[in-house]
């Protein structure tokens, strides 16, 4: 598939390490920005780039309807993007601009993009359960879990974050009984507005999920009759057939660290996506990027960030222009409902726009009368104008007007009220 030999020609060579969302968006953006040099995309998994959001949802419940592939197989050849899927990079010599693969092959590059992402954080206590324990990060993980999740099975989900809750919802749909065990006193510990956490908890309980919050585990074993037994510090047992855990991620920054790049809770990059070696760029989950508007470095583990930052950095590598930075945004789909979250979750006040139609509603997060964040539930139509409100630091002058679901937010934004 690959005959990349960077040293035989004088056309510039851009290499992208990481075949996930950010890497795929980056190579596409390079060609869209009319880069005519060589592009080599190296992915560790043996598949062309695919979407991860369906792995915990459609892939488990309705795999025949799941659309994973980001670009059709022919896309890469059409765009003259050389691909190496299933190749792991073992060495980065930043001074010599050289990459070494596990196979021993070497490539030199003019510019490099690290889009190495993250992996599921390991929980050694649970990993000793062997084939009864599952994590969810890759397509292979999802397929393995799907074949084990059968109607009536007793699933123990460890970690009440977004992966845990999406898996819980999918497992309920498949007829499993589900217990979610979380160490913190609340679900979705990071990055989620309180009102949404309450709604999600109520929804899951209504569907039959049992929550065990504030529980620290200190034992895990398989008993003779085939049950999995987890034990809490206070001695309480939890018995099931399968365990799925989602307790966050570990960043794939080893390559960047070994190459001497500045890494501090992520690969640190500037507003162009450049690392501490200016010809080496980085994007995606593993990256902490400088945002000139907020004067902070920020790191996001979301699809939207991987997609937009990947594209922005890929473009910047070609054009030299700084990345435009979007308002942070993510979604989750659970029990057929679509939840979207934008901006900051640390609002001092949440203003509700209830439509009275089922779940459909919007909440606007305010700090000092300024819209800083938002949640929409089955109401994504409003998210677009709200993201503009957040970006423009929309100041609320009339709360009743804003709380009226019949008022078109787009018009409010356009007239600046």
């Amino acid at each position, binding site marked *: 598939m690959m005959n990349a030999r960077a040293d035989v020609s004088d056309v510039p060579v851009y290499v992208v390490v990481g075949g996930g969302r950010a890497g795929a*968006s980056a190579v596409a953006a390079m060609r869209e920005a009319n880069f005519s040099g060589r592009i080599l995309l190296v992915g560790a998994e043996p598949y062309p780039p695919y*979407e991860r*959001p369906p792995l915990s949802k*459609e892939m488990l419940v309705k795999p025949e309807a799941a*659309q994973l*592939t*980001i*670009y*059709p197989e022919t896309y890469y050849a059409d765009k003259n993007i050389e691909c190496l899927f299933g190749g792991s990079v073992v060495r980065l010599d930043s001074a010599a601009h050289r990459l070494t693969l596990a196979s021993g092959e070497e490539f030199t590059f003019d510019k490099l993009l690290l889009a190495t992402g993250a992996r599921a954080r390991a929980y050694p206590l649970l990993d000793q359960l062997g084939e009864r324990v599952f994590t969810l990060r890759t397509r292979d993980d999802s397929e393995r879990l799907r074949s084990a999740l059968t109607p009536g099975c007793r699933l123990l989900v460890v970690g009440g974050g977004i992966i845990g809750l999406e898996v819980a919802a999918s497992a309920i749909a498949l007829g499993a009984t589900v217990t979610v065990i979380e160490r913190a006193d609340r679900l979705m510990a990071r990055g989620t507005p309180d009102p949404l956490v309450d709604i999600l908890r109520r929804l899951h309980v209504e569907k039959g999920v049992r929550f065990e919050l504030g529980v620290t585990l200190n034992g895990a074993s398989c008993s003779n009759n085939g049950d999995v037994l987890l034990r809490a510090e206070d001695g309480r047992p939890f018995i099931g057939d399968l365990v799925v855990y989602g307790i966050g991620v570990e960043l794939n920054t080893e390559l960047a660290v070994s190459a001497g790049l500045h890494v501090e809770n992520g690969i640190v990059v500037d507003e162009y996506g450049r690392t501490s070696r200016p010809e080496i760029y980085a994007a995606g989950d593993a990256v902490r990027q400088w945002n000139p508007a907020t004067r902070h470095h920020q790191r996001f583990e979301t*699809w*939207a960030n991987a*997609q937009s930052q990947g594209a922005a950095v890929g473009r910047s590598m070609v054009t030299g222009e700084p990345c435009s930075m979007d308002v942070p945004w993510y*979604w989750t*789909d659970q029990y057929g409902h*679509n939840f979207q979250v934008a901006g900051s979750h640390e609002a001092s006040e949440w203003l509700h726009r209830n439509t009275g139609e089922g779940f459909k509603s919007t909440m606007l997060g305010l700090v000092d009368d300024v819209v800083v964040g938002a949640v929409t539930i089955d*109401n*994504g*139509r409003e*998210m*677009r*104008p709200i993201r503009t409100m957040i970006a423009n630091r929309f100041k609320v002058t009339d709360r009743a007007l804003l709380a009226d679901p019949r008022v078109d937010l*787009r018009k409010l934004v356009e007239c600046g009220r």
Partner: protein
Amino acid sequence: MKKLYVCTTADLPPGGARRLDTSPAIALFNHNGDYYALADLCTHGSASMSEGYIEDDCTVECPVHTAHFCLKTGKALTQPATVDLATFETLVEGDAIYVFVPTGDR
């Protein structure tokens, strides 16, 4: 093809959209006085495009995962969608808006 009456022009102001309960469902949009009809079901996931956000550049953004489609051609313009939406002919007679709906698959 069947010529299906939808509503009057006054019922569908610019920036507005309406879902037709046809098979397949159709979303009718008004972009600055021009009417466009696309398949209502987003090609990426189960979302009603009639709930989408009509952009100034004659595109519509899916309300669920923000893929953009061209109103004129149905073309999938941005991720996560990669498959285009079907398009349907529209017609305005007087103040009445019609959509031409395929009959073969009904």
